[in-house]
């Protein structure tokens, strides 16, 4: 009986399985697998939805000159599973010849690849188009070899715009984690510096989705349908004028080369709008290095370079601004009515505080000076007394009014905020209040004062436009792929500086007198009206002669009525300037003020002045405080 029962169970069980098998294999019942669920399970086999990268937006200068475009780049890879062992030496040999890579290197790359034998192993990136086409046409004799095309950023004038435009690079783990939700892929590229990073979301566009049929090993057989077409990214039109940028770079490079300094920046701004027309940082490098995939050795070189090429010195380098800062002290003391517009104050060889002597820079002084002459001679003792009249709190107030001590908010990453010392700040960081001597130093842009070239040009732009502090911008418009303006340009006002307009008029005239007093040598001989202020700021440690190294600054502006022939009196009373500029030379160490010479050369180039008033002899590397007294 029990044998029969067992046999029955056996027959029933096998019969049941057979029925089930029949239903699945012949009757076409798709088992209990819902249709929707099949697709993901078939990843790697048949129909796969995959993202379609969008075209990244382009970048133009303000005159619509193309600065960044996308170019195809070819990658040659080998799928080991498709490369028969018997043909391997031959195929690798041919590849070696075509790509000019050692056969052993190719073998090592293939054999060293981890992962499935069906995954393509990249052998060569950025292969010349000619070679790529040759290889893909020869696919019959080169089994297992594949050529893929990707878009790469091409920075047309790489080193000139690198600090501004930045570059794209592979997304890193932390960025990916936060951007995954927005459709970023683990092997995506993302803007990593400059406007490429700040305007990433606009430039990127929206990735599309398509369905493709793939075989089990991941090879795409054909595209079935495009579920969502990719939307190209929006393009950027910079406020930068490529021509101005080139001229600015030419001037800066000349000054750096002659003076032997290696680090510096020049920023040009439209004072009426806050648009940055040129922004050059030295030393620079080529963004295309990153776009092509920088080698570790090259990247190490950039990282360890003590002149910090990866930093945009125009916005990231905060240094004592020196005498250019006397704009703050002068404006403040006038606005607070601690000094009359025509009141004179005695400049002297030194100002004594207790037992400490605070020297005039020429150790002599000029006798009684009003604000304009004090500014023109850059009299330290005059401004020591102004700082004493203001006190540290009011001095800091006026510095912040001019935009010092906080980032300007420019649309570029990694902007430094500078430093405006106050009692509270010093108490928090150093545990003491400001000493009286430090008030004097703060009044002439020394001591704790720190500013970036951008903050300086923006402050002088505010002076030039009659007291409006604009937020500087480098991107003028965002334009959709079809050319319509998505975001038009709008100037952004940070604040109206809380001083009456006569204060700015007076200070503009004071800045004009800096030029006319020949404090800046032959600058006045240019056929244009320029106003500005030099700065020399000590920093760091004394050398063996007890002398501190120093930076050179020059910040200024030109009135709208710029040509001397139209404006013989050199009138700068109107707040109509179209051009403000600042030059910064780190560790200048020259006889004259390198920054002033660079600014002069830039203005010559900008206004197309045939006359060359450059004074190269002033850029000999010596010591300002020894030789130039």
């Amino acid at each position, binding site marked *: 009986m029990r044998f029969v029962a067992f046999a029955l169970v056996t027959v029933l069980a*096998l019969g049941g*399985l057979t029925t089930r*098998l029949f239903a699945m294999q012949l009757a076409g019942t798709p*088992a209990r697998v819902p249709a929707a669920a099949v697709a993901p399970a078939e990843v*790697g086999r048949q129909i796969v939805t995959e993202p379609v990268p969008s075209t990244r937006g382009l970048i133009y200068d303000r005159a619509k000159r193309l600065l960044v475009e996308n170019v195809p780049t070819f990658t040659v890879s080998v799928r080991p599973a498709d490369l028969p062992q018997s043909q391997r030496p031959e195929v690798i040999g041919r590849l070696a010849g075509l790509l000019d890579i050692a056969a052993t290197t190719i073998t090592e790359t293939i054999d060293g690849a981890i992962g499935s034998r069906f995954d393509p192993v990249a052998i060569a990136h950025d292969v010349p188009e000619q070679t790529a086409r040759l290889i893909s046409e020869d696919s019959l004799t080169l089994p297992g070899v594949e050529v893929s095309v990707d878009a790469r950023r091409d920075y047309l004038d790489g080193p000139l715009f690198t600090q501004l435009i930045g570059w794209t690079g592979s997304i890193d783990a932390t960025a990916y984690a936060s951007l995954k939700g927005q459709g970023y892929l683990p092997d995506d590229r993302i803007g990593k510096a400059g406007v490429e990073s700040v305007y990433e979301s606009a430039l990127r566009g929206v990735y599309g989705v398509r369905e493709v049929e793939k075989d089990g090993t991941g090879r795409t057989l054909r595209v079935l349908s495009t579920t969502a077409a990719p939307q190209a990214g929006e393009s950027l039109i910079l406020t930068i004028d490529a021509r101005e940028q080139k001229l600015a770079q030419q001037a800066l490079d000349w000054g750096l080369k002659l003076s032997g300094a290696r680090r510096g920046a020049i920023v040009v701004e439209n004072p009426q709008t806050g648009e940055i027309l040129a922004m050059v940082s030295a030393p620079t490098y080529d963004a295309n290095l990153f776009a092509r995939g920088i080698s570790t050795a090259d990247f190490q070189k950039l990282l360890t370079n003590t002149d910090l090429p990866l930093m945009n010195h125009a916005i990231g380098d905060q240094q004592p601004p020196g005498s250019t800062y006397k704009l703050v002290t002068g404006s403040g003391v006038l606005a607070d009515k601690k000094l009359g517009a025509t009141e004179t104050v005695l400049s002297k060889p030194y100002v004594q505080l207790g037992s400490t002597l605070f020297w005039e820079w020429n150790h002599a002084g000029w006798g009684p000076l009003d604000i304009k002459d004090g500014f023109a001679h850059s009299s330290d003792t005059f401004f020591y007394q102004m700082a004493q009249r203001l006190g540290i709190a009011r001095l800091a107030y006026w510095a912040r009014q001019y935009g010092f001590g906080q980032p300007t908010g420019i649309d570029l990453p990694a902007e430094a905020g500078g430093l405006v010392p106050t009692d509270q700040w010093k108490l928090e960081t150093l545990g003491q209040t400001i000493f009286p001597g430090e008030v004097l130093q703060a009044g002439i842009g020394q001591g704790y004062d720190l500013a970036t070239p951008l903050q300086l040009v923006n402050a002088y732009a505010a002076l030039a436009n009659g007291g409006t502090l604009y937020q500087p911008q480098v991107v003028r418009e965002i334009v959709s792929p079809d050319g319509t303006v998505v975001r038009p340009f709008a100037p952004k006002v940070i604040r109206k500086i809380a001083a009456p307009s006569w204060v700015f008029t007076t200070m503009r005239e004071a800045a004009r007198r800096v030029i006319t007093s020949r404090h800046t040598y032959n600058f006045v001989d240019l056929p244009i009206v320029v106003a500005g202020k030099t700065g020399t700021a000590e920093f760091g440690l004394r050398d063996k002669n007890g002398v501190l190294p120093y930076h050179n600054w020059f910040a200024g502006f030109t009135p709208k009525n710029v040509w001397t022939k139209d404006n013989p009196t050199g009138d700068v009373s109107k707040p109509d300037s179209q051009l403000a500029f600042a030059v910064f030379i780190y560790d200048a160490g020259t006889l004259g003020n390198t920054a002033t010479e660079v600014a002069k050369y830039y203005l010559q180039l900008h206004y197309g002045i045939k006359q060359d008033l450059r004074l190269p002899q002033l850029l000999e590397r010596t010591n300002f405080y020894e030789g130039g007294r």
Partner: protein
Amino acid sequence: MGVLRVERDAPTGIAARVGGVAWRDFDVQLFVYAVLLATLGLTMAYSNTAAQLGGDVAQGGTTFVRGLVWAVVALVAFAAATAFDYTWLKAFSWPIYLVNIALLVASLLLGSTDAVSARWVSIFGLQFQFSEIAKILMIVVLARYLADHDRRLDSLPAIVGACLIVIPPWVLVLMQPDLGTSLVFIAVLVGMLFMGGASLRWLGALAAATLAALPLVWTYVLHDYQRERLTSFLDPAKDPLGAGFQLLTAQHAVSDGGLLGAGLTNGAQSQSNLLPVQATDFVFAVLAEELGFIGCLVVFLLFAALLWRILTIAWRSRDPFGLMVGAGIASMILFQIVVNVGMVLGVMPITGIPLPFITHGGASLVSIAIGLGILQSIAMRQQRAEW
């Protein structure tokens, strides 16, 4: 013991003893079905190896070559077990039981710790699962016990006694953790009790008790991944890229097979190595895809024929021990077929139970060969006793 004693020839060596039994009673059919099934298994090994290596199948260390080596080992084991007088097994059943426990403990201590469980032990470079051998040894021990209690299985103590024998090795196997084999133990126990004539009333009570204990086992004994695998068959689409992935891919492969199959080494799912553990637990999916409905039917028929032969041998055995061994082996094979194939077809939960002969596992093949060898030994030594 109530067992017919077998008269032995003069012990003048193995050859004399082996030669002494009636080789004409060797069950050729049983042997042929088994060899055919094993050959099918090797064929699938060939196909899988081709999937992994794309051509060069004969190089050492591949699934196929390892399968060949194991087939030879299994043949030798089969021959040895056939030649060996099974009555000695009865005499040695308690030592065998201790050896069984020792092996399982050793396997727990020595087993490789990768792949979560300790069930694999490496011998001479060949991976070996002791729990497979444990199943056969368990059947022998249980057969001895049940044969001793022949016709007295109506009583609860006898049934509980059988359960008590099974529990220690069962717990050890579950600790490895090898959920599949532990289930086979239970199936074998039930099958043997049933065939041994145990009271259906008590069997029913036992089944009810087991059902009542299930929630406890679910909560306290099973690991998370085991629970996940067990339930994923209910709704594989719930987690199509996780636990349900094997199932969905397997079912897809089966559906793709159609009547005649894609042909060996041509399965789209199988050849792209998409099936996890396709050489072992899911080998039937590959078979279904590549050999189709007809191929599967052949496999089922071969299994049916094999089971029929096993039951016949058990039926003919005048020896309750022989009957019990046959019942145990038949239960084991039937249970493994149903659970493994059912799993691939999506009607059974995923448990790591091999498909006899077809799954590429040396231990599984060798232990079945030993089991069949014992059966042959039983078949050959019945007639003689009759004389």
